[in-house]
């Protein structure tokens, strides 16, 4: 692992030789998805750890390790608690990251189906492996779906906390995956398991943004923003939108931080414990209660007025410090939309395969649907709305539906191996998809072409072909046989092989 850097907050760097991307809005995106494992129908006991090891048997025999990098540049490994995990290769565009994440889903499905075949020889023909792309097991253990964004170093952690966190909490209105809990249905999978805003913890206390600062890039120029608050999405639209909208918000934040001016987002800063607001918004299925506790309500009201935005009457009447999650979202949308208008070309260049105007339109349409409580119109792209609608319909047909059966429906939606509900919803046109099967298959064997992932993927491909002994991480490629050789790739934006890389590949 690269050396950990202190997350100190510096102004714009004084580096003389900067990468060309530093002075732009270009970004690197990545998604890490942990999967949950269970077995049903086995003739004798079989724990998730065993199943996860069976899934990784082909990986172990190939790499002598359960931690490896693939030909598409991604990382595949077995994480703490026997969670199979897939981290996408560096992507310059949200739709590339989406395709890579779906490739990961497909790889996991194949590994699980292989393991199931072998398991049935020892544990009976009905042994069934379930692989859940969700975030909580039945005993309340949480696991994650983390997003990584390469962010310019001059964006400090206090800025992240005050200007990004309110967005990350409230975007869950359209990115939340929904969950059947003991207390009823909730918008997010994870709100109950997040304890703090921005910190360095991971498993004991879970923050919404982790300060682990491994930029896997020049640390004088960039930091890595490690977002923990997101849910694992089945909806392709939701995965793309969470990356794209967060990118646009980050562009505004970066520009303001660079120029030392206000972004406008600071008025949304949440009060001391953002997890209270997060839990309250997750439980508010009306999406309209003033559940967000902000630091300075008067400043926010002034800003809303300046932008010509409506404010929630309930907040005003009570003179309370709370606003609705939608109010915060509309404020972000309005500021981002104005910023995009005045930085059109730069924003366009930052997204090679995504039309930012589409993103703004989709984002606004989702907010408007939420504001008019038209949740069913979101059920074709918002995971929580899809599940909520299905459960409501199920209860209509079967009023006796038990909480356990509701939970089963919830889990089945996320089972990427033997689940039937998500597939059926897609098959009947009730959930839209953005990526074709061919494109997923392509992303499974090929790295993104315009980042460092292309070099890593090419190296892994060549090493496997030549039978060379190799290891790698995000910034290093090594061979130990036929010859010892190591190359460092510090620039995630660069896909151009240098002479050292060429020698490494040729010598295998």
């Amino acid at each position, binding site marked *: 692992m690269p050396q950990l850097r202190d997350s100190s907050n510096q102004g714009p760097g004084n580096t003389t030789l900067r990468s060309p991307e530093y002075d732009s809005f270009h970004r690197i995106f990545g998604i890490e998805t942990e999967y*949950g494992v269970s077995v*049903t129908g086995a003739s004798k006991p079989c724990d998730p750890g065993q199943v996860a090891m069976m899934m990784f048997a082909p990986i172990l025999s190939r790499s002598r390790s359960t931690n490896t990098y693939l030909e598409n540049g991604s990382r595949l490994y077995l994480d703490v608690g026997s969670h199979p995990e897939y981290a996408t290769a560096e992507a310059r565009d949200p739709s590339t990251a989406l395709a890579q994440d779906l490739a990961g889903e497909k790889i996991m499905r194949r590994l699980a189906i292989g393991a199931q075949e072998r398991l049935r020889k020892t544990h009976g023909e009905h042994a069934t492996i379930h692989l859940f792309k969700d975030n909580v*097991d*039945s005993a309340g253990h949480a696991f994650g779906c983390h997003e990584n964004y390469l962010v310019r170093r001059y964006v400090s952690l206090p800025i992240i906390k005050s200007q990004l966190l309110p967005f990350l909490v409230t975007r869950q209105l359209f990115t939340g995956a929904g969950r059947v809990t003991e207390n009823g249905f909730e918008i997010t999978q994870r709100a109950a398991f997040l304890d703090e805003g921005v910190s360095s913890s991971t498993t004991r206390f879970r923050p919404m943004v982790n300060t682990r600062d491994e930029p896997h890039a020049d640390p004088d120029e960039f930091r890595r923003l490690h977002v923990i608050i997101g849910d694992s999405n089945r909806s392709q639209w939701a995965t793309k939108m969470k990356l794209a909208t967060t990118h646009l918000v980050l562009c505004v934040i970066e520009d303001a931080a660079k120029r030392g001016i206000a972004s406008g987002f600071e008025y949304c800063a949440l009060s001391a414990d953002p997890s209270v607001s997060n839990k309250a918004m997750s439980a508010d299925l009306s999406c309209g209660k003033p559940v967000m506790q902000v630091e300075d309500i008067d400043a926010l009201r002034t800003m809303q007025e300046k932008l010509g935005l409506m404010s929630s009457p309930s907040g005003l009447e009570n003179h309370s410090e709370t606003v609705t999650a939608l109010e915060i979202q509309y404020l972000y949308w309005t500021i981002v939309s104005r910023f995009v208008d005045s930085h059109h070309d730069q924003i366009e260049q930052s997204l090679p395969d995504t039309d930012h105007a589409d993103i703004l339109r989709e984002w606004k349409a989702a907010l408007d649907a939420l504001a008019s409580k038209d949740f*069913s119109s979101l059920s074709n792209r918002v995971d929580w709305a899809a599940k909520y609608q299905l459960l409501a*319909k199920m209860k209509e047909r079967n009023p006796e539906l038990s909480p356990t059966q509701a939970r089963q429906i919830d889990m089945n939606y996320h089972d990427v191996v033997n689940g039937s509900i998500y597939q059926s919803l897609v098959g009947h046109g009730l959930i839209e998809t953005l990526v074709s099967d061919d494109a997923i298959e392509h992303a499974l064997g090929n790295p993104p072409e315009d980042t460092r992932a292309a070099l890593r993927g090419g190296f892994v491909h060549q090493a496997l072909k030549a039978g060379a002994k190799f290891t790698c991480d995000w910034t290093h490629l090594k061979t130990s046989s036929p010859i010892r050789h190591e190359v460092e790739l510090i620039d995630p934006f660069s896909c151009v092989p240098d002479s050292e890389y060429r020698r490494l590949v040729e010598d295998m």
Partner: protein
Amino acid sequence: MAQQFVQQQHQSEEPQSQAQSKTQKNDSSQLQEDALDAVLDDISSTLETDAETYVSSFVQKGGE
């Protein structure tokens, strides 16, 4: 009077277009209902299995 007439005419136009969009909406929501019914038919066999075992089988240590 003339003003009132204009207003009335305007009002009578509104409900018509509203009604039209409502019909369109009803059509599409009917389609959605039918599709949802088909999904429920698809998954009814899933739910006949033992929900309790299915749910309680999924216990793993936390990750991250």
